[in-house]
Each structure stands twice: as structure tokens, then as C-alpha cells.
């Protein structure tokens, strides 16, 4: 028991204000309390009993809380004469909580709005109630001690602020933290869950944004599944989950719900039908159409009307993309050759905007609207190409002009040289 004396005071798992206050909320923080007999004694112990003393940079410690604020007891007693004196039950000493007790244990403080306000007026205090809506929380409430509780994600001691890159719940760490359980085949087998989510996620465009570009706004596990309320998306449709970031695509898709025959897909498989769930890869124009990389042909066969639409739409968007790339290349080459084409890039940018618009409009499953955007984009691409051709024609004219000028200048120089020679020859003669 003593080995876990300093176990489980947690920061981020929480409780609602209605949580049963079975233990007193700690008094206001006081940095002076850090020097306690708990640390002095446990430093002399071995094994797990020593572990809590190694994490003195825990966020709770930094905010002035100490061992007894979570575990009770008397930090002024103890020492060599009577080590057990600190574990005074009259002073609220308790054994470490069981895994089933952990959420309530943490919620003593994290569900107390008045108390938490003394640290941060904006901090959330609804973690426990959210947790109770999650699969983890529901199983915990039913007595399943294997499901995740606060300490599984946040750690026991050595808890750090979410913004701290060393925190287990920092965006760069979340996938690995979830994977500790969700990639464990033995544990997941009990719940009939697959274990490939983290591996698949790490190949996704979202993971590349976080790990390669350092873009912390890119989604990781908890952005789609929720953090304390972690569950498979429990909203009405998956489109609403993806649509929380990809808002235009989401709203276009939702506009079609119930209006397009064949689009009334199960709420759980809408976006993921084409984009996958964890292994969301960067979408390409080849996903549209009937080619080998098409996702349309996963559902639609040649006998479908939609197959023909996909073929036409795929050809159109790939054609626009290629034409814009050609125009961009041409303007780049003209610019490198020294022709000022900044103003002509407006047409190219307009075309690129239409391309983006067309890509987004795919989610409306409206061929007419899609084709209108592609058509406008093609118009802009042709304008940019014409500008590029004009730039190259200008370049040719400049070089021709330069050649003629240099010939004239060379002739004048030759004439002057001859004149100088003539004058100086006459003089010498």
C-alpha cells in the first residue's frame, strides 16, 4: 500500500459540481507546503514508493499543492521515530483510490467550480459528467476496472499541462496515449475492437499535418471522438464531425440528405465511405471518375447513371487541374525570363479558386453546379494561358529588339573606332 502512497492526484480528469463530496476539497494552495514529511520519507524508500518523489515538476506541485492535498494525512508528522504518524486517518489519510474510484477522486477538485476558479477562472469543471457519457465512463460505472480512467491518459504523478509538449495529452502525444490501450490486442479483444486505428491514423493527412508540419490545429483522436466523452462519433451523422472543420463540405453534404436517392447512407459511414476514417489521405482529383484510383466505382457500376456522371466529372476536374498547371508553368517560365506577369496571375488565381470550389462542390453531388464551377475555372485558365503566350511573344520581341540594337551599337562603335584611327593617322602623318 505504502508504495502507492503518493498515487493519483490528478489534474485534468474531473467532476461536475454535483459530484458527491466524499472528501474535503483541499485548502487554497500554498507553495510552502511542498516541503513535507511525505517527500522526506519517500525519498528514502525504494521501488514504486520512491516514484512519486521523482515528479516534483507535476502541475499540481507547481500550483502549490502537495501530497496531503490529495491523500490527506499530516505532513508535519512522521520521520524516523514514527513513520506511520503521517498516515493519520483522523487527518483524512486514505489509501490510494482503486481504478473505479479514480474519476470521483479527481473530481473532488476538478468538479468544484469555486475551487478551480482560484487557479483559472476559465477552466472546465464538467470532465466527470462528460466522462460518464463516454464508453469508458459507462463501463467504469458498471464496474469494469480495465477501461480508461483519468490516470491512463494524464498519468498519475508528473501530470503536465495540456500545452506542455511532454504531456501525454498534448496533440503530438494523444495518438500514442490512446494507442497504449487501443493497440493492445489482448485488451481490445475483450471488447471486440480492432487495434489498427493508431497505425492507420499515422498514415493520414491529419497526422502528417501534426507530425511533419507541426500544425497543432490538425485533428488527432480526441478532436473527432471527444476527450473525456470519448466514444465513437455519437452525433447524428459523421458529416457533422468532419464538418466541424470542413464546414463547407459538411454543409453541402447535409443539404443533400434526404434529397438525393441513394445518398441516405448510414450516419456512421458517410464521409468515411470515400475518405476512410483513421487513414484519411490527402484527396486527389483522381478519386473522382472511373480510373483505378476512383472511389466512385467502389459503389457505382457501369450500369449506373451515376457512373457516367462520375466519368464526366472526373474528366472535367482533371482537365481543369492540368490546364491550370500548364498556365502556371507558362507564367513561371515567363517570369523567370523577366517578363512582368503579376497582373496576369489574377486570372490564374481565379482559376485555382474555381478548381477549389469544384472540388468542394463534389460533396453536393450536383453535377450541374460542379460543371458550372469547372467551366468558369476553364475560362480563367484559358485567360492565364493567353497571357502566358503573350508574355512569350513579348520576350521574343525583346530579344529581337536587343539583337537589332546591339548590331546598330556595334556599327556605331566600329564607325567611331575608324574615325579615331583616321584622325590620329592624319595627325601622325
Amino acid at each position: 500500500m505504502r508504495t502507492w502512497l503518493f498515487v493519483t492526484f490528478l489534474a485534468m480528469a474531473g467532476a461536475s459540481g454535483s459530484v458527491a463530496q466524499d472528501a474535503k476539497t483541499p485548502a487554497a494552495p500554498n507553495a510552502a507546503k511542498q516541503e513535507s514529511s511525505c517527500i522526506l520519507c519517500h525519498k528514502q524508500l525504494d521501488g514504486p514508493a520512491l516514484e512519486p518523489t521523482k515528479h516534483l515538476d507535476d502541475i499540481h506541485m507547481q500550483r502549490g499543492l502537495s501530497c496531503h492535498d490529495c491523500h490527506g494525512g499530516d505532513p508535519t508528522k512522521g520521520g524516523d521515530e514514527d513513520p506511520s504518524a503521517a498516515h493519520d486517518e483522523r487527518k483524512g489519510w486514505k489509501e490510494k483510490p482503486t481504478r473505479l474510484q479514480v474519476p470521483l477522486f479527481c473530481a473532488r477538485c476538478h468538479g468544484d467550480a469555486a475551487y478551480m476558479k482560484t487557479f483559472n477562472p476559465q477552466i472546465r469543471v464538467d470532465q466527470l459528467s462528460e466522462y460518464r457519457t463516454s464508453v469508458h465512463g459507462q463501463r467504469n460505472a458498471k464496474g469494469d476496472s480495465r477501461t480508461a480512467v483519468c490516470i491512463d491518459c494524464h498519468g498519475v504523478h508528473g501530470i503536465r499541462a495540456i500545452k506542455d509538449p511532454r504531456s501525454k495529452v498534448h496533440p503530438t502525444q494523444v495518438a500514442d496515449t490512446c494507442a497504449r490501450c487501443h493497440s493492445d490486442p489482448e485488451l481490445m479483444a475483450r471488447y471486440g475492437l480492432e487495434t489498427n486505428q493508431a497505425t492507420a491514423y499515422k498514415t493520414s493527412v491529419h497526422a502528417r499535418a501534426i507530425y511533419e508540419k507541426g500544425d497543432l490545429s490538425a485533428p488527432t483522436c480526441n478532436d473527432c471522438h471527444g476527450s473525456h466523452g470519448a466514444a465513437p462519433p455519437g452525433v447524428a451523422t459523421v458529416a457533422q464531425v468532419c464538418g466541424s472543420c470542413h464546414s463547407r463540405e459538411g454543409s453541402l453534404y447535409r443539404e443533400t440528405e434526404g434529397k438525393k436517392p441513394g445518398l441516405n447512407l448510414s450516419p456512421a459511414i458517410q464521409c468515411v465511405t470515400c475518405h476512410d476514417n483513421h487513414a484519411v489521405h490527402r484527396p486527389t482529383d483522381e478519386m473522382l471518375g472511373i480510373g483505378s484510383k476512383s472511389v466512385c466505382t467502389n459503389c457505382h457500376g457501369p450500369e449506373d447513371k451515376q457512373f457516367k456522371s462520375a466519368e464526366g466529372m472526373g474528366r472535367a476536374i482533371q482537365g481543369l487541374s492540368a490546364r491550370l498547371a500548364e498556365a502556371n508553368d507558362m507564367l513561371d517560365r515567363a517570369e523567370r525570363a523577366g517578363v512582368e506577369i503579376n497582373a496576369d496571375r489574377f486570372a490564374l488565381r481565379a482559376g485555382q479558386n474555381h478548381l477549389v470550389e469544384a472540388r468542394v462542390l463534389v460533396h453536393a453531388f450536383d453535377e450541374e453546379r460542379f460543371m458550372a464551377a469547372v467551366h468558369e475555372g476553364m475560362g480563367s485558365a484559358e485567360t492565364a494561358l493567353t497571357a502566358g503566350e503573350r508574355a512569350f511573344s513579348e520576350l521574343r520581341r525583346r530579344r529581337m529588339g536587343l539583337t537589332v540594337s546591339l548590331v546598330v551599337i556595334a556599327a556605331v562603335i566600329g564607325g567611331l573606332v575608324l574615325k579615331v584611327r583616321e584622325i590620329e593617322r592624319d595627325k601622325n602623318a
Partner: protein
Amino acid sequence: MTTRERLAAVQEWVEVRVGISQLIEMGREKKVPLHRHSFWYYMGGMTLFLFGIQVGTGILLLLYYRPSSGEAFESVQFLMTRVPFGWLIRSIHSWSANLLVFVLFLHMFSAFFLKAFRKPRELTWLTGAVLLALMMGFGFSGYLLPWNTLAFFATQVGTEVAGRVPVVGEFALRLLRGGDQVTGATLTRFYGIHVAILPALTTVILGAHLLFVQKHGMSVPPQVEADAERAGKPLGSYPFLPNFLLRDAIGWCAALGVLAGLAALFPWELGEKADPFASAPAGIRPEWYFGWMFQTLKMLPPHILGFEGEVLGILAITLGFIIWFAVPFLDRTPRPGNRVTRAFAVGGWLALLYMAVATAMVYWPQ
């Protein structure tokens, strides 16, 4: 009356009033010394020719340029894309400005090493040094006028350096910027400086410089004079008109060819429009002729003997310019073997070497 007779009458009319034949005669009588260093005499004429190109192309640019932060970039863009030969005029103006400063450096250093500043040409040297400062002022003020990103941030850095000068720095900074920051007010101010104040000053100083050159003629290096004396042979010479002028014209035509090639093959870039709220782009650097000063300030440590390194650097550069201006009064009797003369020659070569290395470092890939 035949056409020939009409032309002769017009010539006679002009001759009576202007006296062109007297000017031509003066040119024929003016002699240019002929010796192994005569080549450097062409640098002055070349500088004047390039300055003439600057004036001509500058006037043409004025017809389209609009000096406000909202319109400057667009007006230059319009000029380069829609006005016939607008790109050529702007490119020649920009390239010629750089060639002008380069040739001016050659002219000044050749005058320095050939001791052309010695009595009675002290004022020729001083007016020349002022002209160099004015040309650098043209470069600095003209750089901002297209109002592109690079120019905007380079001007910000450049004016900040001026602001670091002890005592007068803050005043100088506000005077240059027309406020605390580089804004549209700075652009309008730089425009006024570039097209009115500097040209007016240059006209006066250049007039004086040419007058002094005309009065005292070309300087012959002391070593050449001594050699000629030792050999007992008088130095050769040829008339300014037509020999020297025709040779000058060959150089001008060659410069025109170089300018045409540079303008056609490497047109001066316009870049992106300045955005005062954007962060400064990487690799900001001034025009190359300010590069050695920029690099000097960059290399200095933050503090030297308790003083700010940058301030000490600015003071050292200022002192260098003062010494440069005062050369005719410090090296008063330059002749071969004179210790002061030798010290100045060595100092000049070291200064040139330092400027070349520091400038190269600005462009050296990091």
C-alpha cells in the same frame, strides 16, 4: 535660296548669338595627357553619360509614377506591363543606377590612387565626394519608390541605422520617415527627395565639379610626372575635341549596349507589393553599394568596451567618410617616397579590399 544656303543662314544666326565655334575651338585647344594611366580619365565621362541616362529615363518614369502607398506599386506595374517600352525604361533606369554607382566608385578610387586630389584640385575632389554621397542618396531614395516588399523592409532597416546615429539619430529617422514608421508619408518624402531635392543639389555640385575640371584640366599622376622628368621627355597629349570625345563616345556606346543587354535579358524585378503588416521576408539586404556598411554593422558584437557595437560601427564609418573627404588636406604633398602618401595608398587598398570582401559576404550563401 537653296537648302544649303538656308542651313548656313541658320548656322550663322546661332553662331552670332551662342558662339559655338568658340566652344569648339576651346575643345580643340584643351589637351588630355597621354600616359599609361590615361584609361582612368574615361571614368568621369562615363559617369556623366550614365547620369544623363538616369535623368532621361527618370523623366519618362515620372510620366506614369504615382507617389502614394496606394498607387505606387500599381503604377509601376502598369508601366511595366501596359506602357509600350515601359519595362525597358524602368529596367534601364535601375541597371544604369547600379552601373553609375559602380563607375563612380572606379572614378573616385582611380582619382585617389593617382593622387588627382592634390593642389589645386582639392575642390574637385570635395565636389566629387559630395556627388558620390548624392548618388548614394539617389539610390537609397529610389529603392523605395516601387513600394515592393523588399524595398519597404530594406528602407525600414536603412532608416533604423540612420536613427542609431548619436545625438541626431532620432531627428534624422523622423525626418527621413516623415513619422515614426515607414509609411506612405515616407514614400512621398523619398519621392520628393529623389526627383527634386537631390537633382537640384546635384545640378549645382556637378556644375561646380565640371567647372573645376575644366579650369584645372586632367591631373597627371606624380609618378608619371617624375618619370617624364627623369627621362627628360615632355608628356604626350591629344586634343579633347575630337580625339578624347570620340574615344569617350566609344565607351558610352559600349555602356549603352551593356545596358540594353541587361535590361532585355534581366529586366529589373518588381516583386510583391509592400505589406506593412506582414512579417519581414528572409534575406533583406540593401543595394550592393551599401552592403559593406550593412555587413560591418551586422558583424559587430552587441557591446564593445561598454559601448553599443552598432553605434560604434556607425561612428567608425562616419569617421571613415570624414577622412575620405579630407584626403586632400591630410595627404597635402603626395609624391613618391612620401610616408604619408604611402600610408594613404596602403590605407586605400585596405579599405577597397575590406569593402569588396564585406560586400561579397552579404551575397555569400549562408
